[in-house]
């Protein structure tokens, strides 16, 4: 703790105690330790008592320091109360030191005022210093000093005037500024230049505090510009600069009257011979150079004439100043800033950008830093010129200096556009591997945002995100990987590719949490594609993954030692989903899920029990519930917009974790709980995702009394634990549910649903009905199931911005090979094609025009006979040709998400 002790001796505690007993602790100002010198010791003996000398030693702990400071403060306060004249300034000096150590020193403020009020110069000097150190402009005590200041500003001794001006310049408040402005204004014409310069800086403070006073200072300031004394000239130029900032009147005045004079001054300076007094590194007064350039910048901004006037001198400064020393570079830097700010002059701009280019390749880090800084500003002026230095800037991202790295990264971020996003991102991602841990966070955020903003195609986006996730997944923010999942789920042709790539990345490393999460989600959703190598792209290397391997991966992700709750929960859901797709592994999956039954974490335990229940007892709802999650409403639109909107506004929670209270259904049954998109579609999405039923407002006939949202609420309530839904709205739920099907014959599809709704009164009567009861309730309807054959969810076969096509699927009892499909077109002449093993029978469509804005639908029935029933599942290719706004539109798509056993 003691800055003055050269070395510290280590003593055992016992010894320390021993010493303490011999010499009772004497508090001694440790900062007097330097007096531990024989000569000074003698001197000090005369000054202070002997006991203290014996106790000279360092303070080793903060507590000791505090004790010493307390003692000192007490002594000073005692001296203050005794009104000790002789030691007043010495006490104040001590107080300043204590203040500097960070201890409160309010009690000394009045002492400062007293010292200032005394007559001698030494007292005043200390007093003003103390005033500036111990007080700031926000303290009311300051008002008390105004009078003394006024007197001192009129003092006969110029040094005392100097002190007063200095104090006023450093701490004056608005009130003081108003009171003392006339004095300062008068001092601007004082005979001694040192007072004039102080008065000029004081005026700056005054006009900043009280901009109304600016006009009083315009004329005196202009006269300062004609000074020869550099100190006065510098401060005069600064005063003019600040006047221009606060008052447009002053700006006009100086622009008109002083531009030429300033240009001439700068020219004289630039051409002046060697002046030892002001010379720094061979340049005469760089400070004055810089200030003149600053003022010219303000004068030239937005004024073509003034800019013209200074073109020559700027060119001269930019070319003539040598850049081998810091002073020269400082001038060049300021000059570039001025060139960039004043009105356009092509030639000068090129010159300026070239200077920055030279700066960028400089070995000095400081120079490179300011170059990057200035390029950031230049990019708004001339982006093309800055692009030329892209390679150099990119090098700076890899610099060893954190400040430069950060600046360069910011700049690169601004430089990226559609044309160069690929190489730049590649570079950045490569660098991600080598970068330091602290920098990774910033870098990752920037890369993710770039990739999202400019990605030309989905596959590239997925690739880059995968790389980022496997390099620095732990730094990736939640909304970023949520967006990735949305993009993957919406790119139906890349499902297989994504899941395989993620699986591969997952096999290499499980270190990155977010990578694991995305991988787990994809394996859960598209596990079958992983195993069957569906949708293989040419660039892919084939891999063989068995169902067992896929489940393995999920098991690993649950059992990793560092797995967090979210990942584990996601893995559980993925397992649940796989259980229906991988019948061969269902026993194993059940085991893994059961292992979490005793988890200490409520979330996992609950999931484990619920999922186990679903697996054991509810084979019939498993399929619909576990169907692929769809992010409808996002499918439309091109990738970049969909990505950016989903990160910007929508916070997507795939697999709905972490918000169990807010969205119990989503949690339970694994839905995308989009909380941001419009609420009306929210309800629809929910039901659709929940049960695989299309319940967009379009398909709901007007018989429904309640808006769809209410229905959702009911379902939400129904499935949530311990909440009792109002009976009335539960009936509306059944309304909605039954209204999905206008054809009574196909009501059988909704077998599961029907039983669910029929149950709702039960649920309402038993208010704290736990979810187990609810699910168990499916038991009583087995006969119905037998009659009607298995129920299938309706599925969204196709969806584009203008059109949605929904299939309602049913089976004729006793004829498992034939599937009845009822296609509902909302928002058209469809062609459907099926592979050879399928037979297709199309009925005529109910209509051939579709009203706009989704308030109508066309229904067409199809009969598909699967000759290889049980071996292959239904696949269908659809082509839809329609006219919209007199334009022919042809849309094609493949329906491969039929339930497996059709």
């Amino acid at each position, binding site marked *: 703790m003691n800055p003055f002790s050269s070395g510290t001796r280590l003593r055992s505690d016992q010894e320390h105690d021993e010493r303490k007993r011999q010499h009772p602790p004497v508090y001694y100002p440790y900062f007097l330790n330097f007096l531990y010198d024989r000569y000074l010791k003698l001197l000090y003996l005369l000054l202070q008592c002997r006991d203290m000398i014996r106790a000279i030693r360092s303070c080793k702990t903060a507590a000791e320091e505090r004790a010493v400071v307390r003692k000192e403060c007490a002594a000073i306060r005692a001296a203050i109360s005794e009104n000790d004249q002789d030691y007043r300034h010495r006490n104040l000096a001590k107080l300043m030191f204590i203040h500097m150590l960070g201890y409160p020193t309010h009690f000394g403020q009045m002492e400062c005022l007293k010292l200032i009020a005394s007559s001698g110069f030494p007292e005043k000097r200390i007093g003003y210093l103390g005033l500036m150190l111990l007080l700031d402009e*926000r303290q009311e005590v300051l008002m008390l000093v105004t009078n003394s200041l006024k007197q001192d500003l009129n003092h006969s001794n110029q040094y005392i005037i100097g002190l007063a001006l200095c104090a006023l310049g450093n701490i004056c408040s608005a009130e003081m500024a108003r009171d003392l402005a006339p004095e300062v204004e008068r001092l601007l014409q004082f005979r001694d230049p040192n007072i004039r310069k102080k008065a000029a800086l004081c005026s700056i403070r005054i006009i900043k505090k009280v901009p109304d006073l600016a006009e009083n200072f315009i004329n005196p300031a202009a006269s300062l510009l004609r000074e020869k004394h550099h100190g006065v000239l*510098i401060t005069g130029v600064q005063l003019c600069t600040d006047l221009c900032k606060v008052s447009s009147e002053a700006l006009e005045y100086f622009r008109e009257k002083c531009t030429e004079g300033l240009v001439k001054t700068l020219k004289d300076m630039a051409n002046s011979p060697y002046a030892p007094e002001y010379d720094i590194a061979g340049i005469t007064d760089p400070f004055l150079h810089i200030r003149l350039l600053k003022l010219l910048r303000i004068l030239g901004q937005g004024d073509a004439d003034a800019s013209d006037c200074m073109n020559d001198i700027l060119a001269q400064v930019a070319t003539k100043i040598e850049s081998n020393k810091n002073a020269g570079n400082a001038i060049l830097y300021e000059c570039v800033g001025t060139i960039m700010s004043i009105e356009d002059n092509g030639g000068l701009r090129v010159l300026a950008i070239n200077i920055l280019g030279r700066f960028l390749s400089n070995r000095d880090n400081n120079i490179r830093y300011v170059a990057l800084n200035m390029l950031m500003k230049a990019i708004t002026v001339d982006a093309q010129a800055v692009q030329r230095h892209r390679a150099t800037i990119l090098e700076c991202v890899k610099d060893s200096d954190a400040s430069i790295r950060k600046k360069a990264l910011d700049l690169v971020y601004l430089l990226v556009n559609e044309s160069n996003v690929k190489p730049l991102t590649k570079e950045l991602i490569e660098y991600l591997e080598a970068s330091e841990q602290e920098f990774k966070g910033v870098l990752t955020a920037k890369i993710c945002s770039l990739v999202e903003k400019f990605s030309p195609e989905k596959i590239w986006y997925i690739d880059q995100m995968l790389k980022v996730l496997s390099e620095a997944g732990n730094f990736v923010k939640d909304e970023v990987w949520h967006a990735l999942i949305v993009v993957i789920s919406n790119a139906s042709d890349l499902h297989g590719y994504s899941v395989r790539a993620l699986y591969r990345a997952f096999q290499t490393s499980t270190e990155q949490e977010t990578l694991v999460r995305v991988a787990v989600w994809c394996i859960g959703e598209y596990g079958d594609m992983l195993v069957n190598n569906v949708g293989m792209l040419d660039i892919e290397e084939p891999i063989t993954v068995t169902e067992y391997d896929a489940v393995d991966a999920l098991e690993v992700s649950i059992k990793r030692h560092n797995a967090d709750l979210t990942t584990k929960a996601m893995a559980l859901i993925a397992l649940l989903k796989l259980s229906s797709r991988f019948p061969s592994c269902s026993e194993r999956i059940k085991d893994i899920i059961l292992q979490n039954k005793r988890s200490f974490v409520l979330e996992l335990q609950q999931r484990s029990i619920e999922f186990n229940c679903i697996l054991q007892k509810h084979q019939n709802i498993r399929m619909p519930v576990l169907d692929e999650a769809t992010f409808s409403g996002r499918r439309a639109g091109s990738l970049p917009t969909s990505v950016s909107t989903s990160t910007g506004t929508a916070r997507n929670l795939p697999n709905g974790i972490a918000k169990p209270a807010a969205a119990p259904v989503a949690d339970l049954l694994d839905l995308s709980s989009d909380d941001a998109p419009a609420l009306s579609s929210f309800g629809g999405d929910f039901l659709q995702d929940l049960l695989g039923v299309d319940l967009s407002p379009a398909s709901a006939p007007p018989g429904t009394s309640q808006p769809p949202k209410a229905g959702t609420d009911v379902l939400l309530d129904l499935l949530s634990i311990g909440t009792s839904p109002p009976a009335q709205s539960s009936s509306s739920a059944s309304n909605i549910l039954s209204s999905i099907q206008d054809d009574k014959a196909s009501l059988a599809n909704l077998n599961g649903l029907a039983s669910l709704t029929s149950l709702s009164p039960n649920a309402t009567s038993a208010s704290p009905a736990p979810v187990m009861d609810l699910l168990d309730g499916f038991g009583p309807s087995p006969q119905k199931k037998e009659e009607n054959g298995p129920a299938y969810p309706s599925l969204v076969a196709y969806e584009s911005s203008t059109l949605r096509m929904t299939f309602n699927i049913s089976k004729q009892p006793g004829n498992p090979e034939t599937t009845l499909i009822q296609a509902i077109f909302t928002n058209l002449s469809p062609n459907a094609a099926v592979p050879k093993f399928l037979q297709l029978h199309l009925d005529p469509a109910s209509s051939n025009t579709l009203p706009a804005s989704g308030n109508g639908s066309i229904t067409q029935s199809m009969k598909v006979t699967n000759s290889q029933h049980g071996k292959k599942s239904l696949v269908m290719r659809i082509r839809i040709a329609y006219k919209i706004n007199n334009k022919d539109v042809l849309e094609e798509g493949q329906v491969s998400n039929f339930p497996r056993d059709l």
Partner: protein
Amino acid sequence: MSEKEKQKRSTSSYSSDLELKLGLHQDLKLKIKLHFYVAVLPLSGRLESMSLYVLQIHFVLLISRQGKVRLTKWYSPYSQKERTKVIRELSGLILTRGPKLCNFVEWRGLRVVYKRYASLYFCMCIDEDDNELEILEIIHHYVEVLDRYFGSVCELDLIYNFHKIIYKCFNFWSCLTLKAYFILDELLIAGELQEPSKRTIARLVAAQDSLVESAKEQTSSITSIIAQAAK
């Protein structure tokens, strides 16, 4: 200043009066007072009052390599609590930076320019769009003036250790720290540079010193100090 703040201020100044009377219980009082200040603290480096106008230099800090503060000068209003916080943050930021890195650190939307001379770090805080290179030059300017005043470069390092310098001058223990302040006041006012000539600064400080000396000779001598100590 909002009404609430004013109220707090007045409370704190009231309590400081109380303290003087209560003596030993000051510690407790001070703690309470500091809590008041915590509530008043603005969160960003740029204070509200500062956004009205732009200062060139917000503050000057001298920090030793061990993180001890040697000199602070605040041109923007910071409360005592803020000051301590600023110093703590900045010394953490600056002292950990290796050599050969650039001399600029971004901090709370402001920029801190620092340079190390011997074991002292000279730091100045400026706005984002100021000329950093010039600030480096100002720091060097200050160091050169200090250097000229105190004798040699290496002694500059020792000013604050007092070991050698003390022979030259033992008016009172902190005189050299104060000298550094006086020199700074001749160099900067209101965060703006006032004098580009090293010689002029040295001359002005020396003139004021001699004024102090002559005043002192009139009033006291070493014997009178000893006499007072003996009392």
